[in-house]
């Protein structure tokens, strides 16, 4: 799958070969900005679509750069692809995601309304992340519900191992 670069993009990227090895730029700041934007677009779109090495090379070929510059760009793409994809995945609409869980066993011995109790409970601190914000929720549950939670979630994990899920994962690529 080839990356489609518009005329504007090609123009922006056209300034790249002009950068000499000493790193001195003799052009306007606009040109530099466009160049950076063009490069960013090239890398993020390629990473987003997860295009192959060959497709990347072919896409860049239309820019008419030198062999050396093409190789450099390819290396840049391959080196940074994973990280770019990680960052892009964080941009998706998302719910709070699980970070950590701390637990504590408590036994309630008495309350204002009833003395001499033995009421076991599990106190849980759930750590969640959302858009970079760290959120914690303190919750409680009783032993019976705790067992129920474990049972339900173990079933959830087992689902991934079923034939149905394996088939889907195998066939949708």
């Amino acid at each position: 799958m080839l990356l489609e670069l518009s005329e504007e993009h090609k123009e922006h990227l056209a300034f790249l070969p002009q950068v000499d090895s000493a790193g001195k730029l003799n052009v306007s700041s606009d040109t530099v900005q466009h160049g950076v934007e063009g490069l960013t677009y090239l890398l993020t779109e390629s990473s987003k679509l997860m295009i192959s090495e060959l497709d990347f090379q072919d896409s860049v070929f239309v820019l008419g750069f030198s062999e050396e510059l093409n190789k450099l760009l390819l290396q840049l793409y391959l080196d940074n692809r994973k990280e770019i994809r990680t960052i892009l995945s964080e941009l998706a609409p998302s719910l709070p995601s699980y970070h950590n869980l701390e637990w504590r066993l408590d036994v309630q011995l008495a309350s204002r309304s009833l003395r001499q109790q033995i009421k076991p409970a599990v106190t849980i601190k759930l750590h969640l992340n959302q858009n970079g914000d760290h959120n914690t929720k303190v919750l409680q549950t009783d032993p019976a519900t705790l067992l129920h939670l474990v049972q339900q979630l173990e079933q959830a994990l087992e689902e991934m191992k079923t034939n149905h899920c394996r088939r889907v994962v195998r066939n949708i690529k």
Partner: protein
Amino acid sequence: MELSESVQKGFQMLADPRSFDSNAFTLLLRAAFQSLLDAQADEAVLAAATYILEAGKHRADKSTLSTYLEDCKFDRERIELFCTEYQNNKNSLEILLGSIGRSLPHITDVSWRLEYQIKTNQLHRMYRPAYLVTLSVQNTDSPSYPEISFSCSMEQLQDLVGKLKDASKSLERATQL
């Protein structure tokens, strides 16, 4: 006659034979008249209820009850009646008292969803499974039932389940001591 909705509703409950059989209906009706017409009766009922609550709160045993009732000049027969009634209702009373009070939001249930992520508008060709877990929570403060939802990967869910299992095993060990 203008009665508020709640009063009307409460009164209509008396018509239901499933809520109050004819015996209970008669007793309730009499008690209602008595508490209105007889100031003493009203006071006595209130006092009895208060005493029962206190006894329940402190988990009074039969001898404690008997001693106090004797001090109040109850005769043998009435003491027996009182203790029998108390014994019959003791468990329900304790459950009621135990449920009063503030506590942390309480998890009541969990539901989950397994999905296979294919692409977003920012990222194509994702191909990874993800779980969406929703905890049903009950709050003592408000009658609301908020839910806590979060997503997690398979590894994260394994971590979560592992930790819950540790808590569960610890609980089992603690109750065996």
